[in-house]
């Protein structure tokens, strides 16, 4: 499989949550969450609706206009999770998503991911 095909596969089938959040620093929370959806060609209306839906679920809907550097570690990781979930991938690969979080935030995030799994029906593979 060549690089282009791998990129297309990642875009359409997979979602990623990284240990170090890896948000795009110049985009606000709303744009970060909708980033993958934009790459996949969703309409503005669809993106706005879905971003709000996922952000509400992850309790970051009041931070939509903030830049990543204005958020706490826990909030940034929730944005990363929202970005991975928003475009409804078949599977999410989560690479130690709680490694940079304190125990309290880790617990909250894991609960939220479990809830996503139940409500959105998305499979999450933790490493």
């Amino acid at each position: 499989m060549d690089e282009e095909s791998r990129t297309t596969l990642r875009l359409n089938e997979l979602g990623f949550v990284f240990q170090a959040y890896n948000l795009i620093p110049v985009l606000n929370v709303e744009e970060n969450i909708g980033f993958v959806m934009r790459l996949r060609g969703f309409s503005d209306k669809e993106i706005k609706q879905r971003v709000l839906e996922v952000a509400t679920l992850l309790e970051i809907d009041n931070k939509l206009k903030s830049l990543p550097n204005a958020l706490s570690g826990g909030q940034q990781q929730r944005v990363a999770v929202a970005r991975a979930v928003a475009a409804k991938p078949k599977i999410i690969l989560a690479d130690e998503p709680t490694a940079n979080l304190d125990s309290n935030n880790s617990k909250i995030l894991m609960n939220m991911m479990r809830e996503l799994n139940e409500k959105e029906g998305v499979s999450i593979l933790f490493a």
Partner: protein
Amino acid sequence: MYKLILKLAWKNSFLRRSRTLLVIIMIAVSMSMMLAIEGIYDGMVENMVDKNKRSDSGDISIFAKEYRINKDLAYMIKNADEIKAQIENMQGAQAVVLRVKAEGLLSTARKSSFASVVGIDLQEEERFGKFSEFLKEGSIDLQKQGAIVGIELAKTLKVGVGSKVVFSTQDIRGEINSIALYVRAIVQTTNISLDNSAIFIDINQLHKFLGTDSKNAMQIAIRGEDKELYGKLKIAFANLDVKSFLELQPMIKQMQDLMIIFNSVTLLIVMGVVFIGIFGVMYVSILDRVREFGIMISVGMHYKYITIQIFLESIVIGVLGYLSGALLGAVLLTYLEHYGIDLSAFSDALATWGYEAVIYATIKTSYFTTTLGAIMAASIFSVIIPLRKIKKLNPIEVIKAEK
């Protein structure tokens, strides 16, 4: 999608604001200087061309076939006044003058020098090339054996306004004749040959002195930049020697070519500066954001969109630099067009080359369009190497390494 890319490009262009601003200032300053230099170079040549056309050859000149090889009184244009009237009725001809010329010796009581006497009609010369604007000393008047002398010739003979001079030459019958003249004015045309050797007198007086027919002339000079006029004259007066300005002044053609080379070299240097400036900023900016690109690629952004984003970032810097440079350059050129650069300290050297001491710039749209093209090209080429670096990225490796 493209809205997002444009947004990313715009925001990233100003991520390191002071660095970007510095490059924009660098482009603006170097570009405006280049525009000013271009304007001055062209202004120098155009001024020289304008003075030469006004004082001597016009846009087109007509001579008898043999005259330019052998400047003998025998080679005059017959019935030049009728030809002049015909040309004046041709489309594109703005002004036409007749001139009679003879070479000889101009003397004072102590000195003498080679000189070329030019018989002119002052009123017509005024219409043709605003002759009075060449005045340096005295008043433009050719009545009662009045003469106007070129500035360098006046210096050579040490004559001033009011001096008496004697011009000697061979008339149409082959006799050596002399005419006493009074210097009424000294002119500076910045046409080297005229300034060095010309003495202007009334055309009718010269005809009388030389014994030539007043219907004849050595030169018919024509003002008119209509490109078709030259062709029409060539056909209409095939038995005469019809020459365009640049055919008569090959040195000025060379000068124009030389200025094009100067301007091209200046453009290349400035473009080099722009290239290095944008390259530096983009390269460092990309190195700073390797991880960001890794993230984008890992979540599914195709390389082509990253390429577009990088090109846009570079073009944003280039365009902002260009706009600032164009604005600064336009202000500078406008100032130089109105007030010029005063190089009076070098006036003697400049006059030797046919330039005036105050040099005025010209403004051409082509300065701005060429520069825009060159800056765009520099902006695009400057990101090719940084892009190759991103192409080689392994997103997962980058994200892992930068944790």
